């Protein structure tokens, strides 16, 4: 580990400005400690020996640029992660949405889609899936392909099934997927309600109005300035009385928007837009 190439902060800045010029991807407002660690990890994995080589490769090899984005953005996610969060969605949020003729939900930074399918299962169990649309967006087109397939590792299903039960699920979780060797293929009826699109929270704008936006453990990779931008974007994309759900260690408390929002009881990380 010690003998690997270590980039300086200045060298990282050069790479980041190359990415903006060359590809229009702006990582400059990502949390710098975390971003540096991810880039350093890639350098170790790929046994990069010099800064010049690394820079040249990102600039001139589109496939390597794709790898860079995939490896530097974090794609760790789970179904029904934080069971109490899903229990609150099930018991307090979804009943509020039930009377709407069309329910629109945005999963911003959806990664490989485990949370999108979790949400689809909740809506199905509330008998609302047929009139719901789940917009799943991510900066990284490769992960969206995985959402489209609806296939997750079989090895995770025991954990997900436990999470599901803890979230108040009453069915046999295994009825929602078909086991195919080492993957679990989720029912196609979920997929028909999911709309996929690439969307960059750094540079893209609002594209619809939603009753519920979920963006969990995505903004932890942003600095405060970029978090503010993303929260403004969510605010512009949320109906009055709509809900915004964040990760279990994330908060709206640093945002000026917080005065117009009301956090649900028990410090659950769901805020309702009051005005």
């Amino acid at each position, binding site marked *: 580990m010690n003998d690997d190439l270590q980039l300086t902060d200045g060298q990282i800045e050069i790479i980041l400005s190359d990415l903006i010029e060359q590809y229009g991807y702006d990582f400059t407002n990502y949390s710098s*400690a975390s971003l540096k660690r991810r880039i350093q990890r890639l350098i170790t994995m790929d046994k990069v020996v010099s800064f010049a080589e690394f820079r040249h490769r990102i600039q001139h090899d589109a496939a390597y640029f794709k790898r860079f984005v995939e490896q530097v953005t*974090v794609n*760790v996610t789970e179904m029904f992660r934080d069971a109490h969060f899903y229990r609150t969605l099930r018991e307090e949020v979804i009943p509020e949405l039930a009377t709407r003729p069309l329910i629109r939900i945005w999963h911003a930074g959806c990664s490989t889609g485990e949370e999108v399918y979790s949400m689809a299962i909740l809506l199905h169990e509330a008998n609302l899936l047929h009139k719901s649309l789940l917009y799943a967006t991510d900066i990284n087109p490769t992960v969206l392909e995985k959402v489209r397939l609806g296939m997750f590792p079989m090895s995770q299903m025991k954990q997900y099934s436990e999470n599901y039960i803890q979230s108040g699920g009453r069915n046999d979780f295994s009825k929602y997927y078909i086991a195919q060797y080492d993957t679990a293929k989720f029912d196609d009826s979920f997929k028909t309600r999911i709309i996929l699109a690439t969307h960059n929270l750094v540079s893209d704008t609002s594209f619809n109005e939603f009753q519920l936006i979920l963006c969990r453990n995505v903004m932890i990779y942003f*600095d405060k300035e970029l978090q503010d931008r993303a929260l403004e974007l969510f605010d512009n994309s949320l109906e009055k009385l709509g809900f915004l759900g964040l990760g279990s*260690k994330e908060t709206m408390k640093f945002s000026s928007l917080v005065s117009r929002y009301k956090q649900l009881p028990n410090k659950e990380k769901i805020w309702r837009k009051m005005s």
Partner: protein
Amino acid sequence: MQPDFNIVLIGGSAGSLSRVLRLLPHLTKKLNIAVILIFHRKEDEDSVLHDVLAHKSEFTVKEVEDKDPIERRHVYIAPADYHLLLEKDLTFSLDMSEKINYSRPSIDVTFESAADAFGESVIGLLLSGANADGVDGLRRIREEGGRIVVQDPRSAEVPFMPQQAVDRLSIDLLLTEFNIDDFLSLVTS
């Protein structure tokens, strides 16, 4: 931004809680430091750990939320199932990426990011534990000008982790049951 106080990082795993509980009463208001705890543990033990530690010292105990500021006379707890990173603007960032040394939070990750951001203002203390997490982090702290302390493996419930550090690194202080004053003067100088 170089802080005008030292940042003391304490990493531990199996068997280290009792050592921390004996250390906390020594944290009095006159100490100009911030303390950050990185413990390997299960996710559902978060609030338990906070409650156990809350009133053991004169410092404010807080489990970290994303972008919380790093302030003196606080004890910060790394939340379960996230890596904890320190940013140069004296805030925390969380990171959910892959486990390191089978651990999230990983002691190495926090130690390395603190060393990178705050160099000689950092003191790393490695306690009892059963894997090698923390040793690379201590080395980074040392390389960036900080100081490193290791619990005497003979007094550790699970000596593997501190023993790894003692074998592989030259350390500034071996923490025993009897030299807590040396530790306190090291972390405040």
